[in-house]
């Protein structure tokens, strides 16, 4: 167990193999997937499930595989790999010719994708270093994986960005641990609150950071390149909101897994042509499903909105299973993307201002970096619930996020006032050892059948 390579190295190899997948038939794919073992096969097949059209495969090939393999190849090409957290817009790094982003949480989410033992060996390794078992599992897994770089078993980042001081202690602290241990420079931001002065400080720190990265990479950001990045981002924003609009239909034509695919794209490829194509695919598939009136279950019972994030511990069994049982996964706060906006830009300065605004209002920075985290989270959540006509909310967190745990009461009280029931699951998005998927499924089904469905019936009854 000690000597397995890190997530990026292992993942990149599997993803390169997936890149070779062409137009195989379903049974051929199943046969191929079986070669990888039960869990790994399930997760790959779930991406390739026909309800996702070719969006799942496109994501694996052109988003995830590219993201990971560009980092792997960057070393050979003399480019810098900059490790970024989940709440930092990767488009800034895409604006550089000679730097590529690598997203911490993408690595641990990938751990659930296709690797033997999921992310567990890395989590175990982190435990053996003395990291407490209650720290965010996503970050702990990423730490364990990154530190295998000490033995040359992982792509060590050349520098790291911490966007989280003031938003997520676990992430910032894990980044600090890795930076200290691997001896790599760290560029940091700080968000104090929601006021004008807070923004002014954030903006100054951001611009300083850009200068430092330019110096570190040995390249000044090119105006045309960064403007193109923002333009691509704008196109993605338009498509993102179109997809959001489609979610308002009942039954929801947007497959459950698309939330993760859109979120995964936002975290990695935003600003690139691949991201534009990805969102086009998502939209295309969803529109087709709407036109054909396709929905996997007989009817849509639950339109669930997720408080923080979904579970990445068993894609096949959970998201598809939910759809088969008439439970729609509308979206989650993590995927709200800080409600992306269009920015018209002409110069490098405009473009940087757009990225700073985006970063300031990015998912989780927006909520956890607010002056009152609980209120902001609840406001955003209620907005989404009403906009998407959700009839229930489901909370997933545990080790994965103690901030969201802290605001749960405020959120639940807020949802109660809107008559929307909330289920609190005691599981972990990145660590199946906390609660197994089968237990979670039972809890979800129980909630949907006994609370959500009954409430629906009562509401229908009263309408008559």
């Amino acid at each position, binding site marked *: 167990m000690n000597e397995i390579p890190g997530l990026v190295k292992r993942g990149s190899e599997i993803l390169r193999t997936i890149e070779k997948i062409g137009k195989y038939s379903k049974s051929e794919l199943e046969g191929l997937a079986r070669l990888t073992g039960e869990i790994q096969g399930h997760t790959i097949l779930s991406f390739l499930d026909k309800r996702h059209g070719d969006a799942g495969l496109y994501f694996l090939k052109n988003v995830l595989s590219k993201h990971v393999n560009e980092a792997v190849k960057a070393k050979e090409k003399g480019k810098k790999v900059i490790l970024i957290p989940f709440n930092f817009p990767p488009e800034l790094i895409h604006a550089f010719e000679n730097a590529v982003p690598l997203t911490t949480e993408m690595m641990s989410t990938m751990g659930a994708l296709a690797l033997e033992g999921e992310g567990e060996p890395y989590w175990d390794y982190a*435990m*053996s*270093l003395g990291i407490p078992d209650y720290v965010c599992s996503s970050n702990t897994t990423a730490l364990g994986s990154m530190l295998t770089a000490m033995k040359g078993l992982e792509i060590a980042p050349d520098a790291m960005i911490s966007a989280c001081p003031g938003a997520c202690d676990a992430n910032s602290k894990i980044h600090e641990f890795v930076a200290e241990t691997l001896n790599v420079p760290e560029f940091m931001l700080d968000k104090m609150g929601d006021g004008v002065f807070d923004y002014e400080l954030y903006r100054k720190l951001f611009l300083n950071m850009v200068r430092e990265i330019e110096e570190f990479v040995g390249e000044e950001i090119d105006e045309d390149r960064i403007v193109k990045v923002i333009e691509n981002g704008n196109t993605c924003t338009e498509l993102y909101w179109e997809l959001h609009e489609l979610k308002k239909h009942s039954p929801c034509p947007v497959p459950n897994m698309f939330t993760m695919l859109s979120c995964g794209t936002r975290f990695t490829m935003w600003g690139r042509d691949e991201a534009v194509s990805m969102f086009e695919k998502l939209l295309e598939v969803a529109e087709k499903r709407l036109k054909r009136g396709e929905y996997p279950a007989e009817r849509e019972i639950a339109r669930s909105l997720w408080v923080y994030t979904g579970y990445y511990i068993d894609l096949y069994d959970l998201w598809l299973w939910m759809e088969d049982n008439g439970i729609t996964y509308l979206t989650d706060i993590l995927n709200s993307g800080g409600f992306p906006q269009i920015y018209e830009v002409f110069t490098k300065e405009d473009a940087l201002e757009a990225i700073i605004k985006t970063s300031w209002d990015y998912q989780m920075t927006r909520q956890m970096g607010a002056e009152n985290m609980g209120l902001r989270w609840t406001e955003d959540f209620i907005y989404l619930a009403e906009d998407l006509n959700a009839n229930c909310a489901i909370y997933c967190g545990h080790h994965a996020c103690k901030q969201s745990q802290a605001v749960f009461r405020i959120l639940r009280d807020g949802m109660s006032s809107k008559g929307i029931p909330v289920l609190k699951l005691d599981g972990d998005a990145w660590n*199946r050892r*906390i*609660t*197994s998927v*089968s*237990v979670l499924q039972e809890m979800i089904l129980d909630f949907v059948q006994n609370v959500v469905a009954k409430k629906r019936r009562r509401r229908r009854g009263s309408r008559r």
Partner: protein
Amino acid sequence: MLFGGTDVGSLTAQAVLLEDGRITGYRNIRVLPNPVESAKKVMGELLEEVGVSPDDVVIFSTGYGREKLVEDGFAKEHVSEISCHGRGAFWLNPAIRTIIDIGGQDAKVIRIDGNGNLANFVMNDKCAAGTGRFLEIQARALGLTLDELGEMTFKASNPVAITARCSIYAETEVLHYMQRKFPKEDIAAGVNRSMAERIYYLARRVGVEREVTLTGGVAKNRGVKHELEKILGVKFVDLGVDPQIVGALGAAIFAMEKYGGE
């Protein structure tokens, strides 16, 4: 002069007597509600069996209630069970450098140096994962005795994955597998394996140096022992005594080392 050691755990209590550098007797009982009474009972029974008066023995205590036994005047000094397991194992075999002690409530990994002194240690946190209690809960859910549970590892063909670390959730998983009619042997073997995994990452915090031995009640579970050897890549050294008495033995050795010269 005789030297004695008592060790009270959450489920069992032990006493050991040493004379002229040899074990002259030992005893292992189920605990009474009060740890002090447990120590007094197990040592009392042993002394009676050997036919020695308590006044002729220097006793050191370890485990629960060890301080109270000194206050009561029953024991002369107390030593932590961590040092006692280290010293006991080293005395039995000076090649030992790592001791994995798994009791009912606690799991410890103890590292000792070439002189048998404590070099480092790690203990589980207060949840039951990785302790005898964990096995007990799962055995009960499976309707097996602890001994039967241990043997199942060697009868299973395809052990299930028990992923939950928390005992309560692990029990839910066990029940879930039972409802889905998985063979009992496979579920039980999965329990033993998951127990070994819990100990594994505890052990990695201090590192495992050879030779390694397994002590405490769970050392008697052949299935866990087998899985642990596999996952750690070591063969446990058999100390040639009941693995549950190593703590009490260590206490007796400390007594002998300190007062043996008088």
